[in-house]
């Protein structure tokens, strides 16, 4: 029996997983998916900012469009810190395509026009 906290959403359900990967304590189905993933290959969404030029704001926020393997977080941060974007930027703009070949894009999460 393993106990873990589902971090898929802020509700933070306390999950119990037995040897046969049966999950209990989840409020919604995503808790089950989380528990199985977390015990086999843990992933996280990384959020950060990148440099922005031509704007009164020197940074714009970004995220990994999908979760990436947990052990790649710092490698992905290194890539994010190499990028500079030019104003204007819009939600969904791609800052890095297929970062480190993980099959996930880094996308902008804010509109900045000035």
């Amino acid at each position, binding site marked *: 029996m393993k106990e873990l906290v589902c971090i898929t959403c802020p509700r933070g359900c306390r999950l119990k997983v037995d040897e046969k990967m049966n999950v209990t304590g989840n409020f919604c189905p995503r808790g089950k998916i989380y528990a199985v993933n977390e015990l086999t290959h843990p992933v996280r969404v990384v959020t950060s*900012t990148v440099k922005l030029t031509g704007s009164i704001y020197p940074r714009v926020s970004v995220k990994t469009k999908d979760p990436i393997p947990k052990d790649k977080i710092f490698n992905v941060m290194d890539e994010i810190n190499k990028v500079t974007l030019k104003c204007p930027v819009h939600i969904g703009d791609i800052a890095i395509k297929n970062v480190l070949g993980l099959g996930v894009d880094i996308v902008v999460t804010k509109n900045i026009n000035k």
Partner: protein
Amino acid sequence: MIKKNYDLVVIGGGSAGMAGAIEARKLGIQDILIIEKNDYLGGILNQCVHNGFGLTEFKEELTGPEFMTRLSDQVKELKIDYVLNTTVTSLLPDKTIYASNQEGFYIIKAKSVLVTTGCYERNAGAIMLPGDRPSGVVTAGTAQLYLNIYGYLVGKRVFILGSGDIGLIMARRLTLEGAKVLGVAELCPYSNGLNRNIVQCLEDFHIPLYLSHTVSDVDGYDGILHGITISQVDEHNQIIPGTEKKYECDTLLLSVGLIPNSPLLRDAGVKLSRNKGAIVNERYETSIPGVFSAGNVLHVHDLVDLVTKESRLVAHFIKEYLDGKESAQDKYLDVIASDGVGYVLPHKVSLNNTHDVTFKFRVRKPIKDLNVIFLDKDSEIKKIFKPVLIPSEMTEITLTSEELKKFKNNITVKVEKKI
């Protein structure tokens, strides 16, 4: 262009203000103005670049800026008037509003007002932090603003006091940007942040959490932070001698609570509760008829989804008020937070009320296997079993209009361990 008269003026263009204005427009209120002091809408969410927002509001997991853009897009689509870079300096009891910006000073008459000015962070003075007051002691939200909006890292070796969510989020953010976060000290024997933040902000990065610990000294004799000392506390929050641990650090982040930003309301003569938010009835109307309040200026919410839900509800009451369904002479039942309950909202319920009312409250301490009990003075009216409640999560319980009719003296709310 700011006009002289409005049906509804919304003070503060954060999530609460925008959600309230959007719903008000959908309900048919025409003349609406949102007044925002920053040069952008969205309030604090602009700097909350992490994700986890919007699961109930939009059924999607969004970052703070994405969440607030969904709202500001609707404000624009619905052609709701808003002014930026404009600060409300006073609210008068007759709902006259003074506002000022670079172009000038405005006197605005509002038929109704929604105050959604958010909250601010408790600082070193507010918690009587011992020791020196050097540079390098900053609130977590300030560090978040510097880093996420302006791109400045506040320090390289950081200690965090308080396990509130903003502190936990910043522990991860600073670590990702190359700072060393030495630890988080929490006065309570439990964390005040959401479980998920303990896991993905601390445990993921092996950042230690010291429960029942506080900062007992700050070393910054020459105006620059050199280090701090933390000590363990007993059950009365008294420092236990001999438990000191010293850390060399250049930054101490404070994540020790939020306080409603309510001076406008206070100066207007609105009665405030102990937690500094307005005292409101079941329609979220303050002691001044036609002045309503929602969001973090009313009570601190854990999740923005709860903020927007509250504010949308309040828009319905504003519409009723403007349609003349006011009840200023109503008699009220007081709502009393009793054993184990920190606060309850609304603070009073009209005897004329004919609706179901959702009560929002927080427990004082984590408690398992408990009953939430609603009493009319001493006689029990309703009892609800809950497996677990914790202070960092707001609880909502709805009483039907039928149930509410049974209360004659007051509405007392308490929690009790199930025996």
